[in-house]
């Protein structure tokens, strides 16, 4: 399903295509950084030159001719440098936030057609990681890795070129290897090894997180079997692995920065030695040597900024590849397009079943066993049907197929006698509404959450939906009524209230088929009873309700029941008949 891993060149081009409007501010940030750092070098050179002139130009007006101009230039340059740094940081942040905006826009627009298939279940955590960590990583590369790398090359070369012209070409030649080694050689030493060690450390940390999550989830087993000591020992072993990997990363990084220091200080010594010789020959004097050393010290900082560039580059490419993998994936269901004609509910033929599964089989990608196989079942319009079975029996998979989250691998799912694959996706989802067990509630107002699927809902429609979901009193008791903001994940409401909010959210779209996927589990019996009564009135014999539950006693009042076990139909019929039949339904009923 995933695309083959792209090459770096292709990845770079792909990224550039989607971040084209960043290039101008990025270039500006780079230029500002380069100029600012050159001013930094100039500061040192001006300071040393001031000392040199004070020592050599005795007799003239030293105070007015040397001291005041030097101090004045230093103050001026310091202020200019600070201003340039401010502007550089600001444009860097501009690049960062623009990059974030572009990448986020891209991520959302590419992921939406793949949802819900690609965004549900186990994948959701991984997607959140890609949406945050990987996008941030790529953003950091643009805003904070690229400009320092560019200036690490340009600033030393410019400063040394100036030294060759204005000070002494031989000393410049002696200086040249310093930035060459620091920028072009040392960062690439054992880059592969660092990368491998970094990956190893990430894996070790992943294993630790897994171990901790398992341990917290399995406290009951660990305590019951007196297993805590072994468990802690296992954690410590994983910690030792992680420490070893971290140590390897640290050693390489430490040796690299030590080498940089050796080369930079060695450069100073080399300039001193060569300078002494050349001064002995009378070609230059101590001022030239002092100026060259000032330049060397000035370019040390900019050149050092390239340290870690290779690791950053690798990490950015890895993140870009992870984004590419998700964003360039084909959606699992493709839209039939707007061709079909929408028939209003009243005009649909009464003799055709609202929903029909014909020999439907489906397995999730990567799973060996099918989730459902050979399911044939139909639900007449206006009835209340139920799908029961233990968790993992394939109940929710059937409802996902009904909402065309996935297409079956064989067989067909029909809505009013038409194969879902022939109906535009938007229409399928307006006619089939699913209320899930753990509804996702957005941190906006109650109203915004309610009208998610029907932004133009009238006051009356909202009131009607709230009534069926028995939410009127809850909403009335909220401080700002419908406009009360729900904090993160609806923290203000109880589990049962959230389920009813999700129900009202589905009702407001006026679906033909309402799917309740374990969606009354958190309600107290009294509330549940009145919700069921109001739902029956709402359905009014022409809307279809499909209820999915493992609580078999809840479905005794429905019109027909399908019993699933391990993805296959094991029984179907009217619940009253099945309860007496001593078959699978009765077996499930006995467990309640």
């Amino acid at each position: 399903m995933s695309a083959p891993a792209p090459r770096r060149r292709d990845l770079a081009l792909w990224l550039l295509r989607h971040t084209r409007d960043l290039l101008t501010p990025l270039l500006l940030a780079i230029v500002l950084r380069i100029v600012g750092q050159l001013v930094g070098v100039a500061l040192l050179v001006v300071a040393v030159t001031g000392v040199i002139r004070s020592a050599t130009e005795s007799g003239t007006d030293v105070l007015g001719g040397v001291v005041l101009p030097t101090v004045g230039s230093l103050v001026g340059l310091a202020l200019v440098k600070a201003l340039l740094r401010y502007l550089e940081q600001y444009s860097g942040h501009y690049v960062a936030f623009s990059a974030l905006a572009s990448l986020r826009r891209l991520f959302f627009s590419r992921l939406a057609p793949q949802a819900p298939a690609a965004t549900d279940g186990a994948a959701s955590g991984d997607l959140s990681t890609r949406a945050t960590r990987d996008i941030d990583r790529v953003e950091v590369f643009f805003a904070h890795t690229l400009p320092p790398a560019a200036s690490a090359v340009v600033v030393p070369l410019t400063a040394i070129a100036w030294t060759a012209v204005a000070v002494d070409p031989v000393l410049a030649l002696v200086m040249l290897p310093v930035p060459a080694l620091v920028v072009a050689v040392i960062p690439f030493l054992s880059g592969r090894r660092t990368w491998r060690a970094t990956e190893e450390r990430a894996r070790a940390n992943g294993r630790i997180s897994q171990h901790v999550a398992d341990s917290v989830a399995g406290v009951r087993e660990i305590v019951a079997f007196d297993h805590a000591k072994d468990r802690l020992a296992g954690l410590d072993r994983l910690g030792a692995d992680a420490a070893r990997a971290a140590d390897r990363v640290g050693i390489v990084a430490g040796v690299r920065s030590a080498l940089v220091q050796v080369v930079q200080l060695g450069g100073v010594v080399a300039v001193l030695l060569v300078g002494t010789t050349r001064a002995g020959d009378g070609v230059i004097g101590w001022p030239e040597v002092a100026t060259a050393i000032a330049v060397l010290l000035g370019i040390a900082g900019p050149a050092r900024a390239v340290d870690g560039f290779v690791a950053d580059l690798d990490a950015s490419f890895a993140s870009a590849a992870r984004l590419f993998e998700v964003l360039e994936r084909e959606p699992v269901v493709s839209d039939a397009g707007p061709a079909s004609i929408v028939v209003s509910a009243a005009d649909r033929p009464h003799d055709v079943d609202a929903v029909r599964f014909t020999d439907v089989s489906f397995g999730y990608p990567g799973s060996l066993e099918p989730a459902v196989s050979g399911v044939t079942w139909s639900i007449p319009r206006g009835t209340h049907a139920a799908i029961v079975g233990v968790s993992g029996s394939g109940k929710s998979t059937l409802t996902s197929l009904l909402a065309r989250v996935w297409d079956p691998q064989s067989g067909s799912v029909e809505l009013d006698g038409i194969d879902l694959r022939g109906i535009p996706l938007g229409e399928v989802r307006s006619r089939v509404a699913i209320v899930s067990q753990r509804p996702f509630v957005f941190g906006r107002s109650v109203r915004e959450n309610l009208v998610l699927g029907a932004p133009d809902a009238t006051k009356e429609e909202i009131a009607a939906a709230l009534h069926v979901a028995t939410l009127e009193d809850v909403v009335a008791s909220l401080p700002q009524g419908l406009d009360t903001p729900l904090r993160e994940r609806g923290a203000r409401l109880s589990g049962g209230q959230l389920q009813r909010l999700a129900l009202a959210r589905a009702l407001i779209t006026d679906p033909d088929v309402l799917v309740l996927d374990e969606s009354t589990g958190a309600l107290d019996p009294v509330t549940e009873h009145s919700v069921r009564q109001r739902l029956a009135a709402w359905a009014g014999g022409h809307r279809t309700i499909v209820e999915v539950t493992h609580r078999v006693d809840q479905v005794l009042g429905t019109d027909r029941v399908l019993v699933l076990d391990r993805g296959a139909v094991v029984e179907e019929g009217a619940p009253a008949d099945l309860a007496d039949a001593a078959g699978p339904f009765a077996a499930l009923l006995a467990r309640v």
Partner: protein
Amino acid sequence: MLAATPRAAAAVPVVLALVSASALAVFFVLVGRVLDAIAAGDALRTPVVSGLIILPLVAVACTLLSSRFSARATSGAERRLRGLVLGHVFGLGVTRRPAAASGRLVSAATTDVEKAAAYRAGFVGPIAGTMAGPVLVIIVIGFTVDVVSALWLAIAIPVIPLVVGGFQRAFRKVSGSYRRSTAMLSGAFLEAVQGLSTLVLHRAEERTGRDLAARGEDNRRQVMRLLAANQLLILVVDAAFSLGTLALAATLAIVRLLDGTLSPGAAVALVLLSTLLTGPADIVGQFFYIGATGRAAERGLSGVLAERPALPTGRTESRERPTSGGVSIELDHVTAGYGDGAPVLRDLSLSIAAGEHVALVGPSGVGKSTVAALLSRHLLPESGAVRVGHLDTRAASGESVRSLIAVVDQQTTLFTGSIADNLRVAKADATTEELHAAVTSAGLAADVERMPLGLDTPVGERGLSLSGGQAQRIAIARALLRDAPVVILDEPTSQVDLASEAAIVDALRTLSRNRTVVTIAHRTSAIRDVDRIIELGAHS
């Protein structure tokens, strides 16, 4: 907290930073001497040359040692803290904990531990070293270059952090709203990604996408406006350090050169030395950021470690137990509950003979699982006594009581690892033969044979996903390996697929042989093979 971070973690990097700073300072002083020698036309003297070579090596060695030391101290602190947190979680035992609280524990043991360790062991020392370095540089200047210049610099250096700090306070409000704005920006995006399924099913994805982009753009403009003010700090820091160190040193060098105190070489050296004073400027930002997150993580850890276990430890009793036939169980006028609200069980008395098979039946909420919790000593009675074999649960330790008991719950947790690892949870030193025997008795032998690596097949989140029925048979195999005289079966077939039920009932029958068995069920129809049924509703 302090126990996990030895004082050396802070002291060693400081000492190394001081040595490194003084080595570099003396190096620059020697550079000045060489310049004077060139001016005078003297030859280079051997001590000077060897100083020029040795001092950089000393500084480099300090850098290497310091980074190695911080990395080791950080890893070590991480390991200690993580063990502390998880050990604490185990010590708290089986408590009723909402899902959010479990998530918080996991993040405390991973993210918080990493941040706290990075802060305590990897950050405080090196930062203190960077801050202390300039002090030593000024001392070197005082001794080897010029006392007056050193004094002036000593006055200027502390002024810089004051200026920066004052500026930071003035802009605290801006910084706060800047952070909030960026957090909102990423929060709204993440929420839309996490809720994408819901959006798509409600056909709201395009509208939300547009809305998100528009709000993002508004927010971004606001962030940039705030940033324009916030980043003035950078301007101030940069200017303050340039002026307070380099410009001041250059002025001092020129003035002291002109009044004849300094040689030209020493004056140049003073300028060069001023570059060693700017270290703190580079870490001002980090200081506030890593410092704040590190301290927040430490507070989080302290919060987790402050939770006290609800039960007293109890005495460790001898692990001797009957090899077969089970032990007796007795509840003597027990009243028990979970502290919040009315007790679940009131004055319940029941006694179960060794080897007897008993079913506890009743509707949910009647206290069946509370009896199981009492027997496993996850809970102590408020009044009355619970005895398992010869042990009174109030006197004996949890480990002692639980060594007599094996539980098969409605669902079991599989740990990441192989089938064998998961079985050895119950008996760490079990031989392969014992594992195979347990797997066979649990009715899982055929399933294991079909798995790609047999007992070594990885399971759990990253391995093969087992069906509910298979997982329950692993739980039974664990109970078999545990080989305890008492077995508690807490609705063990309520969640398994119908096709597996018969095999599991068979395996439970094997497990029950020659043991005292307490089966818990909603209704009598699910009960087979018991000597006696106790209706719990009737007692309370």
